[in-house]
């Protein structure tokens, strides 16, 4: 090779490298197309993903539910079996639902909190003359005495409830607060919520506890809530030793450790859509209810008006936004910090000798704090890059990437906001 050829080759190589560098700076990062086998329960607090599906928000981050278009619907009582079968990747559920099956299930974790469930209530017959905790409290009793007096109304009466695990904490706590045991009531483990409602409507049960649809169905029909999760949780403290926390739990999205580890970026994108849905519910409750309620009715066999969703959104299952969830994740003085809520539920099983003390810890059942912190970090990094880009001269391609980054940021997809912002900045 003579000198002229060598110079020519070097020039070509330099030009190619320069072109490559320019392309890298302007090239849009790819968002992989992923199918997620998703399962909902037929409840308000487990079907909100329909809002993201109908709005096309999952599509925007490359996620399709499998089977299309909505995934599958399973009963809460079937959750552990469906999960063990490996038929789903992600299930809308709670850590508490899987606690009793923890020794026999593959390791799993909640990776995103959607709402705080405080919708359980002991329901009484409309014409039974039962007084509610709030009514008794209003008569001047102390809270402890009011709890006892409220639950004493169940003594010797038929009390129906499903044997699903998540509800157990509320039932045991209510009975305990009443200074009773299950032996003091005519306990009936009804097969499901529908049977539970049928028993009450036929006058075959005096009191009942079930999921929110059963509560709402009965409440609309005139049945009376006498003790609610909210009544109990109002006296909770910021500690796993606070038994009142057993009345509530965080609902969210659950996956196996194996799936989370293999699909962590998908986990971040799913979570981002989750936060987008929560923000939408808080900002546009009417529009959210108009999408959410018909879907719930179609899978739960209910006929709720859209207004019922507002009751769920505001009191029974409030969906907390990204910013508001700081309290569940970071604030150690917040009784609803997930560490305390899950920790308190674990203690139920320790007290009964089903778990050894210390055998399980709260963070074996949730990864939501890590996911939240990772999203917060991407958010912060994206915001830093976007701030640097402000006022900069950008090529058309780079400006398009910056705009996309800003759109992802507004949609809580901080992972892709960061990736696109970084690409816009030439990195």
């Amino acid at each position, binding site marked *: 090779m003579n000198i002229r050829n060598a110079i020519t080759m070097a020039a070509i190589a330099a030009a190619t490298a320069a072109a490559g560098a320019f392309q890298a700076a302007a090239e849009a990062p790819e968002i992989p197309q992923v199918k997620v086998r998703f399962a909902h329960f037929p409840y308000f607090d487990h079907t909100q993903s329909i809002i993201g599906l109908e709005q096309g928000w999952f599509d925007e981050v490359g996620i399709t539910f499998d089977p299309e278009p909505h995934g599958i619907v399973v009963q809460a*009582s079937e959750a*552990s079996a469906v999960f063990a079968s490996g038929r789903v990747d992600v299930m809308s559920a709670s850590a508490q639902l899987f606690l009793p099956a923890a020794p*026999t299930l593959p390791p799993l974790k909640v990776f995103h909190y959607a709402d705080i469930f405080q919708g359980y209530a002991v329901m009484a017959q409309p014409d039974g003359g039962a007084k509610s905790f709030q009514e008794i409290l209003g008569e001047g009793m102390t809270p402890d005495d009011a709890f006892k007096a409220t639950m004493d109304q169940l003594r010797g009466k038929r009390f129906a409830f499903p044997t699903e695990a998540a509800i157990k904490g509320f039932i045991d706590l209510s009975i305990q607060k009443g200074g009773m045991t299950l032996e003091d009531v005519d306990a009936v483990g*009804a*097969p499901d919520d*529908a049977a539970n409602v049928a028993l009450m409507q036929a006058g075959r049960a005096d009191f009942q506890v079930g999921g929110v649809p059963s509560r709402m169905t009965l409440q609309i029909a005139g049945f009376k809530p006498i003790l609610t999760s909210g009544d109990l949780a109002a006296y909770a403290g910021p500690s796993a030793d606070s038994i009142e926390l057993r009345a509530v739990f965080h609902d969210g999205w659950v996956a196996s450790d194996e799936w989370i580890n293999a699909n962590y970026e998908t986990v971040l994108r799913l979570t981002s859509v989750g936060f987008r849905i929560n923000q939408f519910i808080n900002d546009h409750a009417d529009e959210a209810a108009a999408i959410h309620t018909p879907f719930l009715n179609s899978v739960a066999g209910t006929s709720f008006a859209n207004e019922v969703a507002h009751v769920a959104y505001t009191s029974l299952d409030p969906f907390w936004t990204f910013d508001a969830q700081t309290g569940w994740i970071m604030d150690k003085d917040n009784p609803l910090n997930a560490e305390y809520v899950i920790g308190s539920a674990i203690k139920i099983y320790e007290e*009964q000798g089903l778990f050894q003390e210390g055998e399980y810890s709260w963070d074996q059942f949730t990864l939501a704090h890590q996911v939240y912190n990772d999203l917060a970090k991407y958010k912060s990094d994206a915001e830093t890059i976007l701030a640097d880009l402000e006022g900069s001269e950008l090529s058309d391609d780079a400006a398009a990437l910056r705009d996309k980054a800003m759109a992802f940021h507004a949609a809580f997809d901080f992972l892709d906001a960061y990736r696109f912002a970084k690409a816009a900045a030439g990195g």
Partner: protein
Amino acid sequence: MFAIRNFPRAYGWYVLGIAIAFVIWEAVAALLGNYRLPSFLLIAPEVFPLLVESRMLGFQGGGDDGYWPHLLHTIGYTVGASALGVFLGVSFALAVSRSRVLRAVTEVPIELLRTIPPLAAIPFILIWIGPGNPAQLMMVGYYVFVMMVVTTLNAAANINPVLPTFAATLGASRNRIFATVILPAMVPAIVGGLRVALGVAWGVQIVAELMGGKLGMGRVFSAMISFQALDAIIVGIIWVSLAAALVDFGLVLLMRRITRWAPKID
């Protein structure tokens, strides 16, 4: 000595069948993992202890005495409700079979009632009589009743017409022919139907117990499902199967005695 010498020939195939089933179970368990199908070696040590103590069952309000009281309840109600259903079903069918009109009127409704799935019947039974033991008695009794009506009516229809005709030519009255010719001739077919009905009754009883009774293996299964405790569920299945096999064995012995006059086909 003779029995020992002949054991391999007489029972060898049974032992081989059990061994093959065991190997298949272990292979599938290894393939699926213990959280989908536990190894029998993990289950075996639990078979007897769970009979007398189960913390999971106690946690779900099923008492502190393990499976034992629940198993006894299931056996008692299955056998008792079946006996009631058999008595009523056979009596009803015998009465109906003597009248062509009554038979024609009842046959179709009974056939239709027979096809109602037990799970679909639950809401009605819950509303009509509420959860508990009477509901179990009614549900199992009902299914055995309709099965025995159909079985008995078929048995009556399938009697060789030569038999009552021959008895009549000998001067026997209608009632005597029914009692001494038709009824005995129906017994083998009724016995066959009885075993089938009792087999179905076990399943219906477990479903009925899911309606919320205080005792019963259905309640045990319901409690264990919330724990995804497959080993404990399999132990329950083993005990229910053993109980059903023993009851069936007793029924076979009883029926052999009742139909000892009938020709046996080995």
